[in-house]
């Protein structure tokens, strides 16, 4: 880094500035609701990066990843809401959420590590559904999660005694909470990216790639595949848990319908479409898939109304149809994703020779 040319350093500075100014640009340009979309982009980026460790690095397809998100969100909701009238500080719950999800990841990982590929996918899918069903039903005999009604009025995050809920005032302008949360999410996303980069270039990161490519060979090289896989599950899960905590604090309301299988599939799509195992690719995936529906909302409905005077194609259907098609087409023509890492691309090219 120290030797990087001026141009690169300038580019980095430019990106940093852009990231810092993004909510103001979005807010001024298109309204504050787009700042909220930005916030969700960052949340999904965290989720996708977490899943990327499991799917992208270690090559274990996890179709129940949203369960860890749910664990984090519910932990936050239970500890910081009128549900039990506990109001624990967000800064205590965040690491707890990470750890609890980590534990959940290890619990799921331990018995299923013997399984590979599609079997693992099915088991994790089942696990995700089981977690959701428990969240939905743990309101009796003892009311823990408040069942299908969800938990409401969750406390927000407080930073230096200032509740982010209230937003902030800058140059005499009032900015709502979405702006404040943006910077919190940005900081945590950058932290997650940093951890991912460090992991990628570490012994563990290389061990994951080795397992992904050839488990038997990796084992022969002296890698303890069980522990390394378990670590992938636990690490990935903990990111999901932290993102879940943030979601609960940000949204102020959690209910089981936010943690369906479709959400898991969506996060998998982000990773796969963007580029498995490649951090910028995964972020690209998260951005595309979070912004696309909002974009379709702005474009498709008015366009259809203008053209035909009524809605002919349901944009939700259209969105899902496009996702489905994109999954198939990307897998057929760019199996490494839209923005794959060089290593991955080379591997695939070799495989085709």
């Amino acid at each position, binding site marked *: 880094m120290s030797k990087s040319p001026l141009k690169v350093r300038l580019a980095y500075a430019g990106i940093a500035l852009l990231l810092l100014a993004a909510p103001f640009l979005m807010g001024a340009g298109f*309204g504050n609701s787009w700042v909220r979309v930005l916030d969700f982009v960052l949340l999904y980026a965290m989720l996708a990066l977490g899943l990327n460790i499991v799917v992208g690095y270690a090559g274990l397809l996890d179709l129940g990843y949203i369960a860890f998100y749910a664990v984090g969100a519910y932990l936050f909701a239970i500890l910081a809401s009128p549900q039990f009238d506990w109001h624990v500080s967000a800064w205590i719950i965040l690491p707890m959420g990470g750890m609890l999800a980590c534990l959940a990841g290890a619990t799921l990982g331990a018995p299923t590590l013997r399984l590979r590929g599609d079997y693992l996918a099915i088991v994790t899918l089942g696990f995700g559904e089981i977690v959701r069903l428990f969240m*939905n039903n743990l309101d009796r005999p003892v009311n823990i999660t408040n069942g*299908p*009604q969800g938990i409401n009025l969750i406390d927000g995050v407080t930073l230096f005694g200032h509740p982010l809920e209230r937003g902030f005032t800058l140059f005499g302008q009032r900015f709502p909470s979405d702006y404040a949360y943006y910077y919190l999410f940005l900081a945590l996303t950058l932290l997650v990216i940093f951890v991912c980069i460090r992991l990628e270039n570490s012994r563990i990161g290389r061990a994951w790639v080795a397992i992904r490519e050839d488990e038997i060979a990796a084992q022969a090289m002296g890698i303890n595949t069980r522990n390394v896989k378990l670590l992938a599950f636990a690490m990935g899960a903990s990111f999901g848990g932290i993102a879940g905590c943030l979601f609960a604090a940000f949204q102020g309301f959690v209910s089981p319908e936010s943690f369906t299988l479709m959400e898991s599939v969506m996060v998998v799509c982000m990773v796969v479409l963007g580029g498995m195992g490649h951090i*910028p690719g995964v972020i690209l995936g998260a951005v595309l898939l979070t912004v696309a529906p909002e974009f379709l909302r702005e474009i498709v409905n*008015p366009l259809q109304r203008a053209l035909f005077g009524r809605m002919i194609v349901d944009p939700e259907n259209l969105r899902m149809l496009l996702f489905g098609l994109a999954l198939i087409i990307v897998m057929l023509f760019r199996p490494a994703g839209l*923005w794959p890492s060089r290593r991955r691309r080379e591997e695939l090219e070799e495989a085709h020779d």
Partner: protein
Amino acid sequence: MNPMKNIVLLAALAGALGLSACGKKAETPATGAAPTAGGDTLVVKLGHAAPLTGPQAHLGKDNESGVRLAVDDLNAKGFEIGGRKVRFELLSEDDQADPRVATTVAKKFVDDGVNAIIGHLNSGTTIPASRIYHDAGIVEVSPSATNPKYTQQGYANAFRVMANDVQQGKVLGEFAVQDMGAKKIAIIDDRSAYGQGLADEFEKAVMASGGKVVVREYTNDKASDFTAILTKIKGVGPDLLFYGGMDGQGAPMTRQMKTLGLKAQFLGGDGVHTAEFMKLAGPAAEGATASLPGVPLEVMPKGPQFKQRFEAKYGTIQLYAPYCYDAVMVVAEAMQRAGSIDPAKYLPEMAKTRHEGVTASIGFDDKGDLSNGAITVYRVENGDWKVLKTIGGPAAAPAPTP
């Protein structure tokens, strides 16, 4: 890894994002310019949110049509507020029945500076969104979210023009015990926020009026096989089965009750009071009983006319369109009385509402719930919902006859 290349790509991406949003920016002035275009006409922006896509799209569309009819009526009538002519403008958004999308939509309405919100359709979306409307000080009237929690949050700006689950569950519970003469009652709910909420209130009301809940079972809102739980219920031998959930499950449930020879009467809430229910259940629908908040349209002074006009324009009423119509009228009248379209100014007038709507004579209690909400119980006879009895409403609080 070539960092430069990545950066260029990232910058391109950011640019694309900016561009994509620019398309939207261009539209905004069009709506913003409208007020000036109309000279001294005042523009009232009404936000409406419901699932316009997804499994409940037909209900959401119905709500939207109800709001639209009201808006058209008001505009055609030359409605005036504070001596100025007003034009109502409808901003309708799809919340996909998803709490996350609903909060984004709510933020969008706040951005657009709407004067009132009609919505959302589901309780699961209305509750998280209400927090945003409350923070922004916008009046929200839900036509169909029946969860009691919505108005229990202590938000002065939250209203609803439909009986809530407590009111409906209470009426249903009492009706089951007193009018249908049920002694042993079985309850099934679909573990959705709506179904579970209604079933819980029903259970309380049954016990309060001396009935006995002998068994409570559960299913989910995507299931179609209920034979296992129905068989278990048959073993207990109840004389009434209450289902808290929607028509897609209620209909096959009545079929399977027939097949299994479970002789209990079937009772449901507004979720099964649909035309769809009859189609799906076929002959098994006969004798099924369900409630719908409000007074039958035929009985209300303006009801039949509303029904005729609505159906000429938008087809059959699915469920909540009349409530949406009333919600808009209630808001418009409050604005008129206050002489202002500013939510802060007309909010006090909302609380004083006395409106002869198409569904009921509407007034609010101190929480913003419908006071004296009437509820009507219907039964399927010869493939059509026939009125059995209306409970509460005008009978309890005689409407001021003109």
